[in-house]
């Protein structure tokens, strides 16, 4: 599976170790009456300095995937298994444990969430929230932590950082709170940042600021970035490669430009065709029928088949494997990927 995924540039004949490599991740939740399979065999990789996107709607398992990577799923009821979950070639859990024991090296992966206000403790001053992380996880002294906290707030472009260290979360706007959350994540000195719908709750002008910030930070620090979202426009602004998830599985992946130009999966194509474009007036949208399945309630065979206009018997019975496209850099999981005609992509408005 992983061999089909785009890896980074090869130098000297030696393949660079991916920053993060996940193979066959499965997450299920054991409830009283039933088991919910939220993630059903997902594999992906992130190269150093690369930004990848996970695109999916509700029930696709994208958020659960992010949380499983972070190791923050409560287990039980969650059960996380994977053939491989590696950070620079070493087992991810082991790396996390090692780093937790030593000082100074922070954590390999940090995460920011959708709603910054609920993620920040309202009774802690922002500076205290930061210094707490720096002292406990980076082994700094209080004085070092204070300096670093100001530096971090500066890095996320909060004006007057030295003064605002003393403010409480509610004294900031939504966009600023999200920056503080990014600062908190950066405090862990991560090599990979997972952003789970970080701009969904923000206004569009603030969103633009945050996306720009994330791009710049990622490039400055050569961090890996995993950007999880349901918004294909937002994703395309930030990442170079995208994984499309549906029903707990990856249904398509590849470079974001080529996927958007010529997707080989009916679901992705449906998303592309049904998303309205700013400025395009009263063109009838091509809609996908039905609704995305709830987590754990995916139909047998291909998870998309009930809504797919191309479905045939084989789609109902067999799960399609993720295979490279014949004439493109991506991979798609569709029994009829080859028969899909070229997508008519609109150019400018």
């Amino acid at each position, binding site marked *: 599976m992983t061999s089909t995924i785009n890896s980074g540039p090869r130098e000297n004949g030696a393949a660079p170790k991916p920053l993060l490599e996940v193979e066959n991740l499965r997450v299920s939740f054991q409830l009283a009456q039933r088991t919910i399979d939220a993630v059903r065999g997902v594999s992906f990789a992130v190269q150093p300095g690369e930004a990848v996107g996970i695109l999916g*709607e*509700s029930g696709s398992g994208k958020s659960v995937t992010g949380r499983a990577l972070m190791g923050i799923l409560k287990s039980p009821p969650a059960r996380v298994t994977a053939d491989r979950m590696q950070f620079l070639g070493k087992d991810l859990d082991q790396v996390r444990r090692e780093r937790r024991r030593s000082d100074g090296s922070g954590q390999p992966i940090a995460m920011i969430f959708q709603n910054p206000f609920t993620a920040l403790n309202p009774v802690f001053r922002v500076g205290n929230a930061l210094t707490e992380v720096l002292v406990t996880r980076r082994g700094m002294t209080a004085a070092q932590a204070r300096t670093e906290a100001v530096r971090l707030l500066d890095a996320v*472009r909060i004006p007057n950082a030295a003064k605002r260290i003393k403010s409480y979360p509610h004294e900031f*706007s*939504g*966009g*600023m709170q999200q920056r503080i959350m990014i600062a908190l994540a950066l405090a862990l000195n991560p090599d990979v940042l997972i952003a789970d719908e970080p701009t969904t709750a923000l*206004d*569009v*002008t*603030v*969103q*633009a*600021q945050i*996306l*720009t910030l994330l*791009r710049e930070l990622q490039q400055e620090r050569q961090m890996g970035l995993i950007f999880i979202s*349901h*918004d*294909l*426009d*937002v994703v*395309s*602004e*930030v*990442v*170079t490669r995208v994984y499309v998830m549906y029903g707990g599985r990856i249904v398509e992946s590849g470079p974001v*430009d080529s996927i*958007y130009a010529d997707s080989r999966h009916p*679901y992705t194509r*449906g*998303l*592309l065709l*049904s*998303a*309205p*474009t*700013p*400025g*395009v*007036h*009263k*063109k*009838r*949208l*091509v*809609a*996908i*029928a039905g*609704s*995305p399945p709830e987590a754990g309630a995916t139909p047998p065979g291909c998870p998309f088949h009930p*809504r797919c206009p191309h479905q045939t018997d084989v789609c109902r019975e067999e799960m399609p494997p993720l295979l490279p496209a014949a004439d493109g850099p991506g991979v798609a999981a569709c029994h009829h990927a080859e028969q899909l005609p070229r997508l008519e992509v609109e*150019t*400018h*408005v």
Partner: protein
Amino acid sequence: MSDIDSDAVLECRDLRKYYRPSGRKWRGDAGIVRAVDGVSLSVRRGETLGIVGESGCGKSSLANAVLMLDPPTSGEVLFRGQDLTKVSDRELRKVRRRLQVVFQDPYASLNARMTVEQIVAEPLVVHGEVRSRAERAVRVGEALERVGLSSGDAARHPFEFSGGQRQRIGIARALISSPEVVICDEPVSALDVSVQAQVLNLLQDLQAERNLSYLFISHDLSVVSQLVDRVAVMYLGRIVEVGSVAEIFREPKHPYTRALLAAVPSRRRGGGSRTVLAGDVPNPAAPPSGCTFHPRCPLNDGVLCAETAPELRLLGDRQEAACHHPLLDAAAPVGVRPH
């Protein structure tokens, strides 16, 4: 302010909705939230007017004021020429048959304890339009079929349906009394992307069929441009620009509109840097003086912009913008302050 539009089926004139901070009445104006601060607009028959803006711009308050759910502080709401702010409760209820609304939250806008039939039939029951249960069932069945559900769904409860379907139920309820104007308050914002298109298509079809007028409120510029004929851009309770979709999206005259458009993520643009608008939306309880946009505006001249609030001026065919320095040259790149 534009001349009185005689074709207008729905009109607002200098509508204002102010909220006082709860508790004691403060002396003076400190802390008053000017949610809607002098809005005038008009919607013609069969036309769709879109209202866009970010949080705090007052678009939802505007919807509530127009619907008279939270009656406005001052100003007029004219429905077919009749001023709703001055009619009796009884008369207002009768007007509601013709002026309906689709709400944002498909989960909370339907009473969970009622059946779909009871929910959809409520306008009929309230206005005495049906005489028997059989007649009610028939009308509800028709309405459900028209929005893409089946008449058999009438006996079920809302929790049995997905978000998109619940929104259709809400639309069925809004349309069953044959209104002329429907206020759509972020009708697709709470829906999955793949479902949004279904509902937008439905709204479009219904409009064509019944010559409805829509007041379509959204924060999502792409969604708005899909459905509407004309767009009004709101900022801190005022309309800063209004015009046709083509005018607004291709030749925005107000710097805020331009910044808003620049900020919309687009897969066609590709990655790479892009100048973005700096700062945050100011606190509606303490708006800046003069033009409320001036602190963030790259065209701020420091004097006039800080002192005097600009009025909407006609700049195109039906395009108006409230700016002391409107961007009349569409081709010139805008020096939006990079961030």
